[in-house]
């Protein structure tokens, strides 16, 4: 700078430099603001969905129709038409809001989806990282990403029109649309998640582990199953947790393919109604501010909280695994 102090243009230059510095600082502020916005978005979602569910907890007016007790505990409605302790029947003379059939329905469909998707996704990931030649591996990954790109409404359509008929022809269940049908379609949406995260975890296991195992005389399968898989287990667990979260919240597939009857039973061949599908099906016709309206937002809050916790567990596990394996040499 000392060389330029003699030039007459100095004040102008200095002013320009100051301007640039100020602009630089403003850009930094704006960019940092974007991060703050990202945080506030998730907070806003929780606040605005949660706010509409508050009356379920606190409003005297709403408590005449529904309380936390009626949502979760067995009820005796004292009418012969509804002798069951858990009934979801929000639109009737005596509205009945038990979340139990919906929770059970969600669980049933999700279990089928996981039973279908978990083995497929994990085994395919093992194949891709351990046994497939490089060219095959490089083509499996994008194709499964493509599966993830199928809109859920299309999977729902496929399950409703095609898959349900196939299952019906094969097994003759009493209900054409049932938990198994919806669960398999849901599994198709979950497979890419489990595959991708498991694949990442398996391929982040250092090569030295495999070499050491092979040097001790283990066969390729023994190496994959007893050395690589245990080392990547937290990542695979995370994949399962995130897949589970996706399955719990997924809406269009179950809305279209599950039959939507709120039945409280463990029979997987009966129609089911899930939490998400109830919100999707009922919110459009509900009276603004009614008990039913607030209960649907309560379900939304419940879904938000469940998936939030699952996601948090998933991401923390992945981060921990990455840190643990990062030190080892490839």
């Amino acid at each position, binding site marked *: 700078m000392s060389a330029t102090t003699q030039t007459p243009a100095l004040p102008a230059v200095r002013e320009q430099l100051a301007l640039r510095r100020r602009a630089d600082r403003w850009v930094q502020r704006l960019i940092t603001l974007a991060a703050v916005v990202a945080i506030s978005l998730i907070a806003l*979602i929780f606040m605005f969905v949660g706010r509409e569910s508050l009356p379920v907890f606190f409003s005297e007016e709403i408590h005449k129709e529904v309380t936390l007790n009626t949502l979760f505990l067995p009820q005796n409605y004292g009418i012969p038409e509804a002798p069951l302790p858990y009934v979801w029947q929000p639109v009737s003379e005596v509205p009945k809001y038990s979340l139990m059939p919906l929770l059970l329905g969600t669980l049933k469909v999700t279990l089928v989806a996981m039973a279908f998707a978990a083995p497929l996704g994990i085994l395919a990931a093992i194949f891709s990282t351990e046994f497939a030649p490089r060219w095959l591996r490089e083509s499996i990954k994008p194709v499964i990403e493509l599966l993830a790109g199928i809109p859920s409404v*299309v999977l*729902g*359509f496929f399950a409703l029109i095609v898959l349900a008929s196939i299952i019906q022809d094969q097994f003759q269940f009493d209900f054409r649309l049932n938990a198994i049908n919806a669960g398999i379609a849901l599994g198709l949406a979950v497979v890419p998640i489990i595959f991708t995260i498991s694949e990442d975890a398996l391929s982040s296991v250092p090569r030295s582990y495999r070499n050491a195992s092979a040097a001790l005389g283990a*066969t390729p399968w023994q190496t994959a199953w007893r050395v690589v898989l245990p080392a990547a287990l937290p990542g695979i667990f995370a994949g399962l947790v995130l897949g589970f979260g996706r399955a719990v919240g997924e809406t*269009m597939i179950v809305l279209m393919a599950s039959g939507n009857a709120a039945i409280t039973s463990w029979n997987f061949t009966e129609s089911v109604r899930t939490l998400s599908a109830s919100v999707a099906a009922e*919110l459009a016709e509900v009276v603004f501010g009614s008990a039913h309206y607030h209960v649907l*937002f309560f379900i939304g809050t419940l879904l938000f909280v469940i998936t939030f916790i699952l996601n948090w567990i998933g991401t923390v596990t992945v981060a921990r695994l990455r840190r643990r394996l990062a030190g080892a040499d490839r």
Partner: protein
Amino acid sequence: MNTRWMRRSVDGVFITLTGFAALLILAMLAAILGNIVLHGWERLSFEFLFSAPRQGMTEGGIFPAIFGTLLVVLLMTLAGVPLGVAVAIYFSEYADRGSWLYRWSRQAVNNLAGVPSIVFGLFGLGFFVQFAGRGIDHALYGGRLTFGQPALIWAALTMAILTLPVVIVSVEEALRTVPQSLRDASSALGATRAQTIFRVVLPQAMSGVLTGGILAVGRGAGEVAPILFVGAAYFLPHLPSSLNDQFMHLGYHVFVLSTQSPDVEATKPLLYATVSVLLGLTFLLNLVAIAIRTRLRLAAAGNR
């Protein structure tokens, strides 16, 4: 000798099993695509793509639904991509990895990606329609119902938030492939940090921005649950012409047509054709994005 032979065949069985799992996934994908394309093909025509539905959806085309879908994703991109790019720049260029802001915003984006799409629908209704929309009506329109109802703009903004993580991940991935030496060279020439980012780093990462935008559009075009209560309509006689109009949407069209049609067999060919258009649109976008991304990955491997 015998045990070795045993071990090898056990190995073969299990390895085949894993290969079979991979094959099964690919086969199911092929079956879905094959079924939809095969059935959808016969009904697809120029007229189907560019005319409005007639006769209670059993005749005519789906132009309004295509138009509405494109309009929503366009608005969504305008709102979501700049914000996504800014957050990605923060993550990769500005953030101090140990700071609470970095850790919290990172966790927020991760969690945002996991929020169920139906919850976005509730949020869109509670926040955009009832809070923001009603607020605007009271402030600017004297309480007359204008923006306080399901509308194009609210659907687009809801979708923008839903797809934000997609944009952020792609842009950040691309920013990370820009060699540090470029940034150093730029600062050595006297550029400020902002100048370095906007004139050197970001142009290098343009493909990532593009990928992020495309993936977001692909995702946004296919999501139905978030817009159920925020502006999608089954049938409208006119194309949407302002931000507070409702709109028709391909995905919503598929949903209503397949679940609420009085005559399923009559609408089936139309339904299949609509699904193939939706699938074609999202697949095309995803294919382009995956292609760009694969090239990017290879370039990143070359830089190291």
